[in-house]
């Protein structure tokens, strides 16, 4: 274990703990950047999709993991991002680099519109409200047919940046780099928000609203800002998702996607950026694993998985249940424990991460 000798307050809020820590992430970035030279197009596409899910997961993580508000409707914000980036490009002829932030802002506008009147809603009520919003947005997309193509869906044009073309089927490696660039950018922004006063007030509101009020945090404002940031990031994820799948309609962004997003970040580990990425990796890798195991093993045994539609979701849910029962902090929590075990070897104790036993109290009496 490395001990840092702190002589000022800066090391507490620095992005990287020390130079090794910094080197690890730069190496990870470098490794991700050279992937297109090794992988074929299919796997590169899957990894690009994982990155898109990670962005969406980060968006939801701001809200659920860091400011403690649960949303079951984030597919709606992805939908707003996806539709607006494409409509802005087709109907108004805006270039991608301008349409992308506008799409994010439109999505975050919807988030603010939801957050302001519902500042008093808590926990389960907010989850239900966002669920209803998700269903409403799905129906509104169908109704707004002249703009969105309704049931038939909408066709995404190629991305053009300074006359460089990005297309999923033509040159997936360029699209991958573009998505990687924006993912990195968003991670840096997110990380910086977390160490700013705003990020600290997110955590304060999440952990105890009453204490947050007492130390002078404007709870309603912080919650609205959290919604806005969350929806902005999710909108960007939606925009990339729209360009990635190239053809989509209202059904792409249904309630099940919203729920899956939430399940994803819970598996990954709530309250950390890593969690969003781990969750996205699970979501991306699971279908590949299922199809691989189908080809390799099960066909030989005479088991045909095609008879069981929804197997992926079923398996995913089972993994999630196991995580909630045995590792409530998700994959990232497990990773922290393993890392601490090796860092402190042989001093690690079993109860090191144990939290105080909690007892539920009603929300109906305050």
């Amino acid at each position, binding site marked *: 274990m490395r001990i840092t000798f702190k002589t000022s307050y800066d090391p507490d809020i620095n992005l990287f703990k020390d130079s090794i820590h910094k080197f690890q992430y730069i190496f990870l970035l470098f490794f991700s950047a050279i992937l297109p030279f090794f992988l074929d197009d299919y796997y590169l596409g899957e990894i690009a999709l994982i990155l898109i899910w990670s962005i969406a997961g980060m968006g939801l993580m701001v809200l*659920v993991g860091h400011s403690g508000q*649960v949303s079951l409707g984030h597919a709606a914000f992805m939908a707003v991002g996806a539709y607006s980036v494409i409509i802005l490009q087709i109907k108004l002829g805006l270039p991608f680099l301008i349409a992308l932030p506008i799409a994010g802002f439109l999505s975050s506008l919807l988030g603010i519109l939801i957050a302001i*009147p*519902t500042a*008093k*809603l808590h*926990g*389960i*009520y907010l*989850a*239900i*409200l966002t*669920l*209803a*919003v998700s*269903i*409403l947005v799905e*129906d*509104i997309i*169908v*109704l707004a047919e002249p703009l969105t193509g309704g049931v038939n869906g909408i066709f995404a044009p190629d991305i053009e940046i300074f006359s460089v073309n990005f297309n999923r089927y033509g040159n997936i490696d360029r699209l991958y780099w573009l998505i990687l660039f924006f993912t990195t950018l968003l991670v840096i922004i997110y990380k910086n928000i977390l160490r700013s006063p705003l990020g600290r007030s997110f955590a304060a509101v999440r952990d105890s609203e009453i204490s947050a009020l007492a130390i002078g945090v404007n709870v309603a404002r912080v919650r609205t800002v959290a919604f806005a940031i969350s929806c902005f990031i999710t909108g960007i994820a939606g925009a990339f998702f729209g360009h990635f799948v190239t053809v989509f309609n209202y059904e792409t962004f249904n*309630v099940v996607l919203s*729920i899956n997003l*939430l*399940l994803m970040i*819970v598996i990954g580990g709530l309250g950390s950026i890593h969690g969003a990425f781990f969750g996205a990796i699970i979501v991306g890798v699971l279908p590949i694993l299922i199809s691989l195991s189908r080809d390799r093993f099960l066909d030989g045994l005479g088991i045909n998985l095609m*008879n*069981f*539609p*929804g*197997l992926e*979701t*079923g398996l*995913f*849910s*089972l993994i*999630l*249940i196991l995580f*909630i*029962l045995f590792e*409530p902090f998700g994959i990232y929590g497990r990773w922290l424990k393993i890392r601490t075990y090796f860092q402190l070897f042989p001093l690690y104790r079993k109860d090191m991460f144990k939290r105080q*036993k*909690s*007892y*539920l*109290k*009603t*929300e*109906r*009496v*305050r």
Partner: protein
Amino acid sequence: MEILQLLLSGFASGCVYGLIALGFVLIYKATEAVNFAQGDMMMFGAFITIWLTNSDYNGLPFWLSVPIMMLIMGSFGYLIERIFLRQVIGQSQIAIAILTIALGFILRFVAGAIWGHEPHYLESPMVGKNIYFYQAVLGMAEIFVILVTIFLTFILYVFFARTKLGVSMVAASQNQLAAFYVGIPVNKMQSFAWVIAGILAGIAGMLFSAKGSVDPITGLLGIKAFAAAVIGGFGSLPGALVGGLIIGLIEPFSGRYLPSGFSHLVPYIVLVLVLILRPHGLFSQVSIKKV
């Protein structure tokens, strides 16, 4: 007469929503958790009724298969509580909500794997029998649904308001630790709530399958029932029924008088409006703590 007809059919489907909502409220009242799998449990109950009753499967007489189904669903609820929910007792509502969402997905998958994805119909003795009421047609099944729902709501209301067991269940949800101190077996209360919720889901499923077709996606009806429970104010049993009736009545009327496409938006718009204007539902159960 058209209005009367819409009113009656809305009333009947509202009762089914109300029944599922009762299941939500029951678990919420007794364990302070929200069971997102209630709709899927209802779907499961419907399939079990069909599996017991229909001549393709077991061909039992309807009046015999209903108690068997209630027994199966009751033990099913108990098992879910013992295996999964007991482990997370005391954890935050959100963890439990996510757990039950995942359970719902698994139930949907299991039902699809066992019974397939095509719609199933129940061969109940009520099929095809109609009653004419001021020129409005009302199926036997619908009358049955309405009567059973009102009866169950009444029984549950009395149970929670008057019996010792009911009151101690409410106490266990309001403050687990305090309830434990005064000698209420909190774990047993939670098991018991899930057994009742399982049976309720089974009855709702049986009634639903008596009215129409069932397939594994039917469980998503739970979202509408959810809206019903919230409109009524989570935690109020009569409120759940009223919320269910509101949703049930809104649907046929908006389907008839609004342009197509808008009709199934209306229940959710009502839900959003209720949440914004009366954040804790029409029959709010929230009270300020007295010191």
